[in-house]
């Protein structure tokens, strides 16, 4: 029996780790989404944190904790710059601009081999202990919990649902969204170093459309109105391909797409929807 558990763990621990790494990116996307901004920029924040972290692992002697913190800071710095530039645009332009940003990030990474290893990438001979990953994710989750119940959380919900009404209540939408980008930057930067350590490798393709797609799908799937949604969504979205690969290996891609489609048709607001929960409570 114990052997069965050990075997199961050996087979799926890596998937669990990958799910936790994805949760960082999903939460980074949620951070801006919860203030009304659809943005893929968390990919770029991840690139900042991932490449800086990788270089620190390879060349500095710093302890892991310090590297995590610095990766988060790199993401934060990138986010603040992006925020200043992007927040001059209206929301649907920001979505397009963030998509363009992801494309440009890859080109930049390709053409700055000193920083990023260029087309060959950087190999990182350092494992990611699952314990570290879980603790880091736990701290981030606690952070989101406290934000949700703070004045920032109240203001962000108002800004997301109705920016005009929020403004007439004295809420400076731009300031709230700036903070949202900051949070997204820290969490994205952390996600970047986590992903780099998980893959033990970073390259121009690491922080590209694949990550963008997984993180947005995970956030929407899990539910974009509560911080637990992205965590759950990332878990489901990571587990889904593994399950499909086990059940229907030949058509696993199509099966993934169909599963995603079915979830969107039946649960368009995602798995975790506080409003639906409240509506059901009223109905009773």
């Amino acid at each position: 029996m114990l052997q069965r558990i050990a075997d199961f763990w050996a087979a799926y621990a890596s998937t669990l780790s990958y799910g936790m790494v994805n949760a960082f990116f999903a939460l980074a996307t949620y951070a801006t989404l919860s203030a009304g901004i659809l943005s893929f920029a968390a990919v770029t924040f991840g690139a900042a944190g991932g490449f800086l972290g990788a270089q620190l692992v390879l060349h500095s002697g710093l302890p892991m904790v310090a590297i995590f913190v610095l990766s988060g800071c790199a993401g934060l710095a990138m986010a603040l710059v992006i925020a200043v530039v992007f927040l001059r645009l209206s929301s649907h332009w920001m979505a397009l601009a963030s998509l363009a940003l992801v494309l440009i990030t890859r080109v930049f990474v390709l053409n700055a081999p000193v920083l990023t290893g260029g087309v060959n990438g950087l190999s990182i001979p350092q494992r990611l202990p699952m314990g570290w990953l879980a603790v880091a994710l736990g701290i981030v989750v606690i952070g989101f919990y406290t934000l949700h119940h703070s004045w920032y959380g109240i203001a962000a919900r108002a800004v997301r649902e109705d920016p005009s009404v929020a403004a007439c209540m004295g809420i400076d939408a731009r300031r709230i969204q700036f903070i949202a980008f900051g949070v997204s930057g820290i969490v994205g930067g952390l996600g970047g170093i986590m992903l780099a350590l998980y893959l033990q490798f970073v390259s121009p393709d690491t922080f590209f459309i694949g990550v963008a797609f997984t993180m947005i799908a995970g956030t929407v799937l899990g539910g974009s109105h509560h911080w637990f949604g992205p965590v759950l969504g990332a878990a489901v979205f990571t587990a889904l391909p593994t399950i499909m690969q086990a059940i229907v290996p030949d058509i696993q891609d199509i099966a993934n797409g169909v599963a995603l489609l079915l979830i969107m048709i039946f649960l368009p607001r995602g798995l975790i929807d506080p409003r639906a929960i409240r509506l059901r409570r009223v109905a009773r």
Partner: protein
Amino acid sequence: MKLLTLSEVTKSFGGVTAVGGLSFAVRQGLVTGLMGPNGAGKTTVINLITGLLHPDSGSIRLVESELGVAAPHVIAQLGLARTYQNVRLISGMTALEQVMAGSFLKRETSLIASFLHLPAARRRMRALEERARHLLSRVGMADRADVLAETLSYGEQRRIEIARALGAEPRLLLLDEPTAGMNAAESHAIGELIHRLRDEGLTVLMVEHNMKLVADFCEHVVVMNFGRLITEGTPAACIDDPDVQEAYFGKARDADRLGALR
């Protein structure tokens, strides 16, 4: 004292002049009614005052400060709060949460303190929650505090919106048709609430169609039509004014002609 002064305010959208050369003042401590038939430009005036729109020309002054092109959240910080013609409550929030959101300007908590949930911050939020419940009971919605606001009836939602506006402890309250959809008793209750608020020092500018409400509870009335001022004065004087009657009910000549057609 003139709390809010509009001078020659003009706003056009394409070829349509929604507000043209409008000038009037709202005196502190009074309940002023803003009347006019549908399409007269009343909601546009409210949007201009609160900063959601900016005038093409003219000035809007709060006491002596020019509101000009200030952003809505800055204007709110100066002490203005409003309700909306079509109720705009925040989706997904309970009645209590709506009022808490409205109390944002009273939070007296820094971002760091709020994020770290320091004891002082927690105390302040609890105090504001108490205050929010109190505001809800003032509008008769105490027992609905934890209900999803969007599931409540239209009249109940309007009252919650008023409580939300009061959350910011404004000095000027702008109400856009607060009693639309209410019966006589409910409207009267709102009127009495407005008078109680006025007695506590609040200045109110109220857009209303309900003539009885205006007659009973407004001390000064401004009447608009086609974006322009028709007349202003006491409610009785305005309601009897032939220009006002024509704006609302049409020309007496036309009424006769229609009668002849039947």
